[in-house]
Each structure stands twice: as C-alpha cells, then as structure tokens.
C-alpha cells in the first residue's frame, strides 16, 4: 500500500518538473537554514570536546549580591569557590579556573596576543581535551606553582612554527617564562568557559587567591558522578549557598549563585537573569516561536501550490472515491506523498547545510570554529522534516479528500 503511494508520488513529481522544482527549492532551503541554526546551537552547547560529558557538568560562572535596591554581579572570587565547593560531597570532581585573561608574546618582533586561562589541576580531569602531544599539568604542579603551560595547536604553530618537539620548550608570555608540557587541539571560541590559547596553573597567575571578596575573576565546573545525579549536586550546592553569610548586610540581603548546565548558564547570562528563574523556558519558547514563524511562509507557499494543483489529480480522486475510498484514506495518501516530497527536500537541505557550514568554517568568522553535521543534527533534521511535511500537507490533503466523486470525474473542483 505504502509502496503504491510512493510510486504514485514519484510519478506525480516527474509529471510537472517545474512545480517539483519550486516545492523542492522551498523545502530544501527552509531545512538548510533551520539545520545551520541548529548546528550552530549544537556547536555552542552540545557535547563536544572538551565538554564531552556535558550532561554531567555543572557550571558556576556568576555571583550576585542582591537586595531590592542594590545589586552587584560578577564572576566569582577564588577564595569563595575554594571554600564552599570543596565541602560538597556529591560531585565527583570540582575545578576552579579564571573566566578569561590575556597575555602578549613576541615572535621575531611580531606581537602574538594569547587568550589565557588560569586553572587548577582538576580542570584536566573534569574536561576531556584532545592532547596532540604531552600531558596536562598535574594537581601537584599547580600546588607547587610550577611555571608550566598547555598551549593549543595554533599557538604552537604561531610561536614555534611547528607542533613537533615543542614539549619541554619555553613560551615567554607577558615576560614570564613557561615550560610547555602539552599541546591540545584548538577549542572553539564559542566554548568560552574552557577555550583559550594557553592554559597555566592558577597559582602562577595574577589572581589573588586569598581575596575574601565573593566577587572575583573565577568560574567553577562541577562533574557529577552520573547524569542522573546532577539534580542532587545542584540541591547540595544550593543548601551550602543558603548558609553562606551575606557580606555587608547593610547593602545586600542575599547571595545568589547557581550551578547549572552550560546551556542554562548561557541563557541566564544572555538574559541578565540573576534570580531563581534562569529564563531557559522563556528562551526555548522564543526559539520555537521564531522557528515556527520562519517555517510559516514557505509552508504557506507549499500549501498554496498544492491546493492549486488539486485539479491535476481530480480524475484520479474521482476514480478512487467511486471505488469506495473514504476521505480519511485519501488524506492519509496525500499526507504520505507530501512527507515523501519533504524527505526528498530534506536530503537536499542536508547537503546544502553541509555546504553552508563548510563555508562558515572556511570564513573563520568565529575563531577555531568547526561546525559540522552529526547524529543529533540528523535526528533534529528528521523531526523538522516530518513536522514541516505535516504542516504543509494537511490542508491540501483535506481539500482533495473533500472533492465530490461525480464532479471530480467530470473535471471540476467545486
């Protein structure tokens, strides 16, 4: 039965190639744009190096001292994180790092600006970097304030001209000398909690580790033992935070700091939310709304075209109806046809999306970006295709099924 429907659909497609082209153009470009957007999204918050275990990671990036009339919001102080995170029992590992930093190195009188990150030793255990050569620096090296560093591939190329035999050589940045112990593959700049050109022990950075101020230059990453344990970790963290004394109670009444997934965290920062509601629900609704709105015009176009083409099929519909096919059967058939057409367009759309992403990579608009299609993107593509197919097929199918057999056989539409 299904096979017959598909055969008919194929024949219909071949009958008037110009209209097939219009339909496919609309479908494939719509899907391409949606896929590119999703790929960008996946690239930013999906499970990629170094956050491969993203479903187990929790990020603490901002702290707000809050009261009705006065708020102060910033990244977090090292001493605060160090004191309150290491009492937690539920996380498997805790890492504290600087939120960012920069240093300048000179190669043959040419300036080389490096994004740096000062981290503890656990940083390398919580995250999974791809090491091309060497190793991460250890917890012990951090404790002993060793001048060691991990650099990324591009920095190795720019500074030493090669990635071979760089281990053990020295990088001079901001007139301090660091021994290179490891080289990692470039981390896209969109991963701004972990991306850098050079990582160095937090003990040799300019960060004041004793500063009791709650606000400071640091962020923390927690690794939960399993994805299911994430809420437990969040709960325990919130319990600890609830007991934290509020500094200068004259000005502030609350310390607001949350451990959240990377996506939730970014949405919170983007919306400037500091309260218990991180704005994730609102953001997702907004995205879905915009996506739907964007699909509306191509879908309307397709509906229009399909509804106008009912005439072509009137004799076929008349015969089917005369032989006892019900309206529902016909609706089913036309829906299947439309979804088949959308699938074809989807395959084209995927190819176009792959091309667009490759062009984006080549343009180097975002440093170290490497967009690509993966399983998740394919899955989402399939969902979008089915949705789009149904959206654009239901109304014309309904119109077709409503044709009266006698008039349809005579070749009319009313």
């Amino acid at each position: 039965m299904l096979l017959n429907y598909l055969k008919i659909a194929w024949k219909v497609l071949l009958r008037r190639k110009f209209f097939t082209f219009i339909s496919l153009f609309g479908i494939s470009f719509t899907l391409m744009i949606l896929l590119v957007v999703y790929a960008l999204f996946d690239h930013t918050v999906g499970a990629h190096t170094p956050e491969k275990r993203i479903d187990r990671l929790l990020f603490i990036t901002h702290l707000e001292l809050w009261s009705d009339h006065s708020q102060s919001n910033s990244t977090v102080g090292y001493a605060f994180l160090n004191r309150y995170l290491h009492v937690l029992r539920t996380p498997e590992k805790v890492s504290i790092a600087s939120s960012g930093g920069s240093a300048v190195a000179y190669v043959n009188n040419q300036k080389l600006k490096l994004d740096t990150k000062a981290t503890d030793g656990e940083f390398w255990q919580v995250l999974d970097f791809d090491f091309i050569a060497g190793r991460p620096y250890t917890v012990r090296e951090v404790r002993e304030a060793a001048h060691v560093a991990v650099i990324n591939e591009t920095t190795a190329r720019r500074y030493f001209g090669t990635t071979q035999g760089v281990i053990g050589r020295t990088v001079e940045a901001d007139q301090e000398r660091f021994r290179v112990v490891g080289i990692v593959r470039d981390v896209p700049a969109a991963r701004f909690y972990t991306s850098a050109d050079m990582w160095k022990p937090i003990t040799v950075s300019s960060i004041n580790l004793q500063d009791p101020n709650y606000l400071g230059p640091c962020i923390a990453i927690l690794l939960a033992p399993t994805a299911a344990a994430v809420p437990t970790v969040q709960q325990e963290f919130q319990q600890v935070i609830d007991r934290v004394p509020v500094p200068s109670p004259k000005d502030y009444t609350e310390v607001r700091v949350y451990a959240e997934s990377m996506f939730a965290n970014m949405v919170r920062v983007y919306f400037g939310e500091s309260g218990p509601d991180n704005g994730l629900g609102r953001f997702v609704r907004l995205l879905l709304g915009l996506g739907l709105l964007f699909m509306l015009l191509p879908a309307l176009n397709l509906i229009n075209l399909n509804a106008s083409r009912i005439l072509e099929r009137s004799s076929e519909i008349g015969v089917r109806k005369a032989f006892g096919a019900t309206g529902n059967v016909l609706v089913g058939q036309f829906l299947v046809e439309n979804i088949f057409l959308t699938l074809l367009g989807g395959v084209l759309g995927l190819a176009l999306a792959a091309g667009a992403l490759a062009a984006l990579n080549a343009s180097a608009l975002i440093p170290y970006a490497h967009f690509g299609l993966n399983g998740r993107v394919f899955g989402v593509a399939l969902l979008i295709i089915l949705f789009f197919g149904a959206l654009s097929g239901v109304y014309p199918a309904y119109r077709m099924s409503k044709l009266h057999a006698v008039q349809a056989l005579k070749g009319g539409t009313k």
Partner: protein
Amino acid sequence: MLRHLVKLMWNRRQANGLLITEIFFAFIVLFIVGSALIYNQQNYRTLLGFDYEQVWQVDLDAGNDQRSDRELEATQRQIVQRLQTLPGVRAVARTSSNTPFSGNTNRSDLKRTKGSGGAYTNGNFYYMEDAMQPVLHLHITQGRWFDKRDDGAARLPVVITRETQEELFPGQSPLGQVLYSGDLETQVVGVAESYRASGDLSDPRAAVFLRVSPQDTTFAHLEKLLVRVQPDAGAELEKQMSTEIMRIGRGWGSNIGPLSEYRVSQLKLVLTPLIALIIVSLFLIINVALGLFGVLWLNISRRRGEIGVRRAMGATAGNISWQVLGEILVLTTFGLLLGLLVAAQFPLLGVLGVQTGVYLTAMLLAAGLLYLLATVCALYPSRLAAGIQPAVALREE
C-alpha cells in the same frame, strides 16, 4: 474597470485567501527587515564624532598589586609621563573603561534642576582628561574643550554633545548652564558633535564628557589610556610601550591594540546577524515569488474557458493580459492593507524607539517591492493567457 476588478477579487476572497495570507506575511517580513536595514544604514551615515585612525587603546592591569588607589594612580601617572616621551607617541590621555568600540557603557540621568521635575535625559557618561582632545579630535561646535582654566572650578566642568543640547536646552545656549546628576553638580563649558563610541551602527544618543582634572588621584575607574601615535608606528613601538609599562608597574600587565582593529571586530559582531537576516529574507522572497508564479500559472490553465468566452466576445489580447495583471495587483493590495494594519502599530505604539520616518520608508519600500514582485510573477502567466485561442479553449468545454 478597476472597480470591476476589485469587486471580482473581493467576491473570490475566500478562494484567494491563502494567496492573500502569503502576501500579508511577505509584507511583514519585508517591513521588519527593511526597518532594520534602513535604521542601521542611517546610523552608519552619521559621523562618529571622533578620529579612530592612529589611536591605540592601552588597558592597564594592576593584577595582584595590593597598594592603595592613590599609589596605583601615582604609578599610572609615571607610566603616562614615560609613554609621552617615547618617539612616535603624540598624545596620551586617561579615560574610563567605556572607550570607543569597547561595548562598555556607563549611563546616568542628567537633569536641569536639582530636585525632581524639569528637563532630564539619560546619557552616556565619559570621563576624559584635557589631553583627550588632541587624541580623539573631538568636534567642538560651541564653547571650548577642557583646559587649565577649569582647574579649581567650583562645579565639575562638562562638555555636552549635540543630542544632549537638543534634549535639555532646545533653542538656548547651554554654555555656563548647570546640570545635575544625583549629587553631582556640573557646569557646561562646551558643546561637541554627536559622539558614537558604541560603533558605526549605533544610534546617536545623549552623551556628556566629564573632566578628569590633573588633581584627580583615582585609579579604579580610569585604568584605560588612549594614545595617538605617528602614522608609521608599529609593533616596535607597541613592544616598547608594554615593556615600559611592565618596568614601571613592576608586574603590571597591559593590552595594547589600535582602535581601528576594535572597530572592525565590533562591526563584524553587529553585521553578522544583519547579513544572516538579509540572506534569510532573500530566500523567503524568492520562495514567495516562485510560489506566486506557480499558482498564477495554474490558475490560467483552470480559467481557459472563461478567457475563451471573453476573447470570443471581442476582448483583445491586451485586455486579457491586463486583467490577469490587474487581478494579482488587487490581491496584492488586499494583502498589503492587512499588513499595513499590523505594521502601523510599530510607529503608533513606538515600541522600539525608532523614528517614524524609518518605519514609513520601510513600509513604502516593502509595498513597492511586493508590487514589483507580483508584476514580474504575473508577466509570463498574463502572456500565456493572452495567447489563448477562443476556438480551441471553447471546444475543450
């Protein structure tokens, strides 16, 4: 003829409902995208209000330095004095962190009277030293820039920009007038052109320059330097500067970059979403055009009988093609009217704070584009319709 067409289309409004909806949405999309583009283009053509070429920004980072603000400032002063003596440096001035193209802003209310009530505006506050004029080449239109005469002034001397003048002193001279911001009392010594430090596409908004006197010994809010350099200055000078900063500051870090570079990266940041918007809407428009074309073509083949009768009754080929064209233009008008109803809400409600002129231009542009689109799409189908032979068409019935 026109009334007849409108009546014809109005009676078939249900059958053409989908087409009208599509034109309606296409108009909304064109209107929104058009507004965004016109708005940005208008801003782009406005003067920035300063020269960014050959100006470098130097961020000073005291890092772990635990000394008092006063001592930090003394070190900073030494650094400034040393930088001024370097060959290749023309002028150096300290400023707050909201430097051009940095994306940092510092806004406050500015009032004509101390208490509540009276004219007020929310403007950008820029703290600047006397030496900033030779660095940024600000355009002073009335009064003067800060200088030694302002030392010991009872109220903090300020220079306001054109927008601030227009909002607070419409039709009067602001020179010598007093402005309040919280507890701060200031006195206007000059008026400058619009100053758009937020970048090429930002809208010109009220701004005020506040004088940092040589006696000001705070470091905390003035840790950036702007430096005007000779046109031939390069990496050599930059290295020299950062070495000097590190030597005098003993462990201070610095980040030096030309403003022109910050401008390019800032421009990239704001242009990328605009370009994405253009690509997406272009695709939507092509899509609509193809769809319109297809539907019109199909309609012609469905109406062969009707057209055959008209031809047999003496209508010329020209009449027929005008009818087809006229019908689609009337349909487009229906869609447009619906769209205009929605679009008119934007300037009426003033939702986004954009001038009405921008919206009106966008409406005109969107309407014109849609009419053009409809005409182009109808050309081929109308010729097809005109070519129908009455004898052939009528025999088919």
